């Protein structure tokens, strides 16, 4: 085993970084995330857990390429969801977040021929119930939904409360929680791709997080996805506009 000397936690963390890094490469045009695994070989469990954790983001490279989910990557994600159980939620709210993350992955997998779509989870409480602070943190945990071709009530909420997302981004930056800030900036970039001008200038935010953030591939992936969404927001991009 390549991780024989490390703790289980470190093995899983390293696997998340590998999968995120691979997805990042794919987004930049370097193959697909399924290349992480040997064909016909058993996939190590930490890798499967990482694939499950990153969920729908694994398929981001194909979505930004304008195509359907890459079949091999979709198969890997479907395998991970079969083998690795969903994380145990510490609260009802956390369970809802996990359900929405799973919903996003499920929606894309259905399109790739893996018939396992989960029913649409209950709607999340909005900022008027949770306060913009707690709501924006919740939305940051759902940044995986901010992908082209995904749409639903969470997306509607992001558009309806873009200022709360922007305040949440600023709050996270000031609290030095740049991981949350990156995920919220990605949502704001998504709203820009939907034609909604953000009250917060996003380029400097992304630059700042790239320079001062944790430097992880996972955060790098959030930033890269945000930048790709911002590219779509530019009027010259024919792919702009809300996806069906």
């Amino acid at each position, binding site marked *: 085993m390549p991780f024989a000397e490390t703790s289980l936690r470190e093995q899983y963390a390293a696997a998340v970084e590998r999968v995120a890094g691979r997805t990042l490469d794919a987004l930049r045009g370097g193959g697909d995330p399924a290349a992480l695994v040997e064909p016909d070989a058993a996939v190590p469990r930490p890798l499967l857990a990482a694939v499950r954790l990153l969920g729908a983001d694994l398929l981001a490279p194909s979505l930004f390429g304008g195509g359907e989910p890459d079949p091999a990557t979709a198969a890997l994600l479907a395998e991970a969801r079969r083998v690795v159980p969903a994380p145990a939620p510490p609260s009802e709210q956390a369970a809802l977040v996990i359900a929405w993350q799973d919903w996003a992955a499920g929606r894309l997998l259905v399109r790739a021929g893996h018939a396992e779509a989960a029913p649409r989870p209950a709607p999340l409480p909005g900022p008027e119930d949770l*306060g*913009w*602070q707690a709501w924006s943190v919740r939305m940051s945990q759902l940044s995986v939904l901010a992908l082209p071709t995904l749409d639903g009530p969470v997306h509607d909420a992001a558009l309806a409360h873009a*200022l709360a997302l*922007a*305040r*949440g*981004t*600023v*709050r996270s*930056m*000031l*609290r030095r929680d740049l991981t949350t*800030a990156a995920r919220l900036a990605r949502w704001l970039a998504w709203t820009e791709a939907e034609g909604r001008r953000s*009250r*917060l*200038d996003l380029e*400097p*935010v992304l630059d*700042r997080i790239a320079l001062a953030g944790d430097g992880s591939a996972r955060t790098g992936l959030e930033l890269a996805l945000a930048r790709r969404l911002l590219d779509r927001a530019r009027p010259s991009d024919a792919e702009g506009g809300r996806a069906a």
Partner: protein
Amino acid sequence: MIDTHVLATAQRFGSRALTWLHAAHRDGLGRIPDNTVVDLATPNDAYKPLGELALAASVVLRDGVAGPAGTRAARELLDYAWEQLREGDLLYERQLRHVTMSDPLELYGHFARAGYRHPALDDLLESIGRLRAAHAIEIQGNRRLAIANARRLIGLSHQPDWAALTAGTWLGALPEPWAVEWEIAYQNTHTVFHLTDWGAHPEGLPEPIRDYLHDWLPAWLDIWLEIGQWDLAVELLMVDACIGEPITGRQGWDALAAVQRADGLVPRDANDPVSDDREEAFRENQHTAVVAVLAGDITLARALGADAAAA
């Protein structure tokens, strides 16, 4: 329409802070030592705090929403501060000696707001206002606005270029809101206070800055409440009142009301315990009391439309 819970909280918060300030000064705290000369080796000890006291009391009188007890306390505090400054003689002598020093001008502005005048100081300031030197001193943008507002209150003939002065502030640049720091946040609050003359003229704030504060004030308030910077949080609530329709809601008022002590003292922050020594407790928390009085008063006055009294 402003939340009545916020109004009730703001009113109680401010009037208790005023009671605390009044009691402290009645008992002789914060006096200028008898042997003080115009050079003031330590102007921050008593002299500048008296100016801040005059600011709070003069705004309370201006707005006229404090009720009989509050109005009486404010009047007594102003009389007391004016007497401490020897009916303005101390300001006059200090300004006469130091041509380009701005603190006598700024302190006098607060008294002038409430009708306390010193004719010789008026003449002196008018004369100094004609000097290029007076306008050439190198200071921060928000401090320039403080001086401009003092000149406006006193009624000096020099007319500042408000737009140019505003452009020279941090807020004037509408910067990335996540780049704010503790000291910058204080500078920003003062930019708003001077442009609006402490809430009397919300329209004195250019619309882009008002929109900017509408967007980001809640985030700033939230993070400084989280780390218990009560003094700054009170200033941010005052900004919220000065810009028109308040945006931050109950969060700040409830948090600050919860840390105010029964005697009205508001601790300046959550890091340092309030001293058991009354004089030290006064010295360290008097600024927070001043801003508490102002924040409560301006919030109430704006909501009741009492700004007309300022005209």
